[in-house]
């Protein structure tokens, strides 16, 4: 739980806000982080860049500081969460300054992942703002000698309702700082009708910098005396250096030396992969030196990994009985015979390829590390650097720069650990720069997955029995070498929670051994789960000669809350009472997108098709209609996408629209060309030539996003747009061509390539 405390008089704040500033912090006390000391902003490095320790600070000149403790990778989160504080504070947004937090457990969770920043911190941010406002009101009331109940706030000032006396926040800050922070019960949160910013939104605080080249990413971090490093990693996961000849590398102008990095001790987790680093004066020299290294490798046990063979293995496993994840109705009985339909779906390994490759700057000095990193998870940076270097967690200061894209990759700080390890060995700051090739070849890939689907249908084509079985190397394998089954959290991503109202449902999962690092990527397991379920459902609808949307609504059944009693269903880590799975909300977005897209009048024909899919992920309900055109030559274009969503309360609608527009582009890449393959354990792709992502001429010409007005608690928005788009796109392709997309991507599918 979070509690708010007044820390104005604590010594460490002086440097940041000055004497007399009113400062509130939210202290998060989860059991995980209850041990150890906090890094409290006392180091020189800490003071060198903006990093106040707390969420709210108000200066005597009226400047309001609000801390953004989540990472900015384009979702506008470092604007949107402080905006919630500003709303409850009644602060003038023009007088708010945002401070990016360093990694520090006192902020609670900082892992900007899982579409959960607003969901997790919405209430906390409101309370932070409301507590500050309460104290300012109290201070004014005392000053005027009137009851606080007669005072209220206007923009950035307290007023006395009867005398119209008025005091600016800055004038009250010093007096308010001497007051006790209110208890939660004393806080008066605004009514939605009183919101200034929530639901209306603002543009990113970084917008102008982003358009003028002034924004600072991890790639742009610089400190005096730093050197550059480029690392040759073992080409096969788990391999190590057998022999090294660096003579030619050392002859390259600007190259200082080479340094070996130890291979990781399994499980890999966030440890450096190992290899040989070339240290140089500049990035280019480091790259050049690296090309001259002569290394022989011991490739280790994964050198037999072949993705073609592996696909067969997964599909064979998917055809054998697996572990029961959830059973409904008669699922224990033998599967009916008769009108049975089955299909296999497949999604390969996917790479994140954010535009900014992995990069980190770290300096080791006097037993402490200061890092500047584009990281989604600065506390994970602290943890891995601490364990790699054998120093206390609080001696790792992690500054969070802007991220040039993340998509989940930058939650895994192996690249920051590399910089820290090298810096310790060199005794000076090191900037590790990955090439695009490094990024593609040494990712934590989204799992390759095989899904086997089977349904027995009645006279109207509606399933009387349903079986679905997925097989994929689990993310947990990155942290536990023995893990082969999907963990409940990732099975819950659109698999365990099949929302259909059918007499018999059997949901299974089979085992798969990982041969590369598996990690989470935007929408994660929802991508392959929704693809299989929503495309299979579309296939059944067409077989029954029924409208796919009407058919899906029939399968979903009446509005109700799904019952997961005795089912391991983590619900994205959210409380099920607060965020229940409500089929009515899914129905609503389906009906919304039907209306907005004019679905009833959309008639698919040869070369011109409309596809549809709906899916709940990250607690948000989404329905998507995709229109495709296919030329005689098989060239596919996407004139229009309509997507309707219910994400509960939306803080920043413009940012949400942008996330859903971006999600369909991300999904376009997955469907068209997203595929990582391996031969002899080596990843075969390297750059945007052989791992292409969607370009301006390949994406939907027009994406319309419709947001449901809702008073439900805020849910995720960064990821939920991807899964239904992928399925709807494939369903549209069928509508236009009569060809089913069961194997992704199109570029290696013999029906389309």
């Amino acid at each position, binding site marked *: 739980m979070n509690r708010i405390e007044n820390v104005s008089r604590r010594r460490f704040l002086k440097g940041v806000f000055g004497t007399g500033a009113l400062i509130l912090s939210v202290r998060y006390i989860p059991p995980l982080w209850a041990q150890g000391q906090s890094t409290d902003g006392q180091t020189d490095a800490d003071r060198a860049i903006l990093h106040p320790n707390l969420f709210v600070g108000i200066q005597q000149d009226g400047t309001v500081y609000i801390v953004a403790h989540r990472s900015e*990778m*384009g979702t506008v989160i470092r604007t949107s969460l402080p905006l919630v504080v500003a709303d409850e504070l009644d602060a003038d947004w023009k007088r708010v300054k945002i401070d990016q937090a360093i990694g520090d457990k006192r902020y609670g969770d900082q892992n900007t992942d899982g579409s959960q920043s607003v969901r997790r911190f919405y209430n906390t941010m409101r309370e932070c703002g409301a507590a500050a406002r309460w104290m300012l009101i109290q201070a004014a009331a005392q000053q005027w000698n009137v009851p606080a109940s007669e005072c209220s706030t206007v923009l950035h000032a307290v007023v006395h309702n009867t005398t119209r006396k008025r005091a600016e926040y800055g004038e009250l800050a010093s007096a308010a700082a001497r007051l006790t922070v209110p208890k939660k019960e004393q806080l008066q949160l605004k009514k939605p009708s009183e919101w200034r910013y929530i639901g209306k939104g603002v*543009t*990113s605080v*970084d*917008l*102008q910098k*982003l*358009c*003028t*080249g*002034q*924004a600072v*990413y991890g*790639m*742009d971090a*610089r400190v005096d005396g730093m050197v*550059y490093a480029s690392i040759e990693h073992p080409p096969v996961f788990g391999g190590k250096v057998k022999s090294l000849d660096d003579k030619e590398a050392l002859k390259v*102008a*600007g190259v200082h030396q080479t340094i070996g990095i130890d291979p990781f001790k399994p499980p890999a987790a966030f440890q450096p992969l190992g290899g040989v680093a070339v240290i140089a004066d*500049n*990035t*280019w*020299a480091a790259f*050049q030196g690296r090309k001259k290294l002569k290394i022989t490798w011991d490739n280790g046990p994964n050198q037999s990994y072949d993705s073609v063979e592996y696909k067969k293995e997964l599909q064979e496993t998917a055809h054998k009985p697996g572990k029961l994840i959830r059973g409904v109705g008669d699922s224990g009985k033998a599967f009916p015979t008769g009108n049975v339909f089955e299909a296999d779906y497949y999604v390969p390994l996917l790479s994140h*390829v*954010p*535009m*900014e*490759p992995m990069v980190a700057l770290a300096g080791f000095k006097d037993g402490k590390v200061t890092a500047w990193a584009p990281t989604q998870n600065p506390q994970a940076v602290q943890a891995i650097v601490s364990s790699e270097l054998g120093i206390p967690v609080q001696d790792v200061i992690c500054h969070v720069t*802007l*991220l*040039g*894209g*993340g*998509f989940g990759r930058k939650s895994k700080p192996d690249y920051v650990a590399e910089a820290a390890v090298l810096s310790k060995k060199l005794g000076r700051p090191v900037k590790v*720069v990955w090439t*695009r090739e490094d990024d593609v070849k040494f990712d934590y890939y989204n799992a390759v997955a095989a899904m086997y689907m089977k349904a027995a249908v009645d006279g109207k084509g509606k399933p009387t029995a349903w079986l679905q079985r997925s097989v994929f190397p689990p993310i947990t394998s990155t942290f536990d070498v023995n893990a082969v089954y999907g963990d409940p959290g990732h099975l819950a991503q659109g698999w365990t929670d099949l929302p259909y109202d059918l007499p018999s449902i059997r949901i299974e999962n089979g085992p798969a051994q990982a041969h590369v690092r598996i990690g989470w990527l935007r929408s994660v397991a929802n991508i392959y789960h929704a693809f299989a379920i929503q495309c299979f459902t579309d296939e059944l609808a067409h077989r029954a000669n029924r409208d796919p949307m009407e058919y899906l609504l029939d399968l979903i059944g009446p509005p109700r809350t799904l019952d997961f009693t005795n089912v391991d269903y983590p619900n994205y880590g959210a409380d099920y009472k607060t965020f229940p799975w409500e089929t009515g909300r899914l129905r609503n977005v389906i009906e919304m997108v039907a209306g907005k897209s004019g679905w009833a009048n959309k008639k698919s024909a040869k070369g011109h098709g409309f596809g549809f899919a709906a899916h709940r992920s990250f607690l948000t309900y989404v329905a998507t209609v995709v229109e495709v055109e296919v030329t005689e030559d098989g060239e596919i274009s996407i004139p229009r996408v309509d997507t309707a969503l219910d994400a509960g309360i939306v803080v920043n609608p413009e940012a949400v629209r*942008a*996330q859903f*527009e*971006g*999600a*369909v*582009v*991300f999904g*376009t890449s997955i469907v068209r060309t997203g595929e990582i393959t391996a031969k002899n354990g080596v990843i075969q792709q390297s*750059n*945007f*030539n052989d791992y292409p*992502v*969607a*370009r*301006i*001429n390949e*994406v*939907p*010409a*027009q*994406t319309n996003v419709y947001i449901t007005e809702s008073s439900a608690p805020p849910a995720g928005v960064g990821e939920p747009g991807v899964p239904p788009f992928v399925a709807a796109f494939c369903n549209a392709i069928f509508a236009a061509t009569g060809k089913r997309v069961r194997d992704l991507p199109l570029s290696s599918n013999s029906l389309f390539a």
Partner: protein
Amino acid sequence: MIKLKVNGIDHSFDGDPDMPLLWYVRDILGLTGTKFGCGIALCGACTVHKNGEAIRSCITVMSAAANSEIRTIEDLSANGLLALQETWMQVNVPQCGYCQSGQIMQAVSLLKNTPHPTDQQIDDAMAGNICRCGTYQRIRQAIKLAAEKTA
């Protein structure tokens, strides 16, 4: 010794003539607005202007940049935001923003040569610039709005 002008300032360089211009402007001059994305001219994040034309600085070696005038994103708004940068902000194009320097440099070049581009011309000119966040729809919109403004 290679001489060149960067953002109106004369520079000379006596390092590796095969060093790409990208690393010269970033690591040597400290102009970090120009980005590294792929290193082989596939993504456009490194786009700068050489004698007024958009080029990929990651494959333009220093010897090829000799005696030229280079302009980077930092100089674009030296005398105030360009109309294109204003429309870029107006339609709220960037998400993570990392590719946007290159997108803007490419779009400036497009509008210089084709002041009123069609959708097809926009696609043709911008297809070399990848945005992984997927801001393409807004990029197109911002370019069109800027074209209208300068009608």
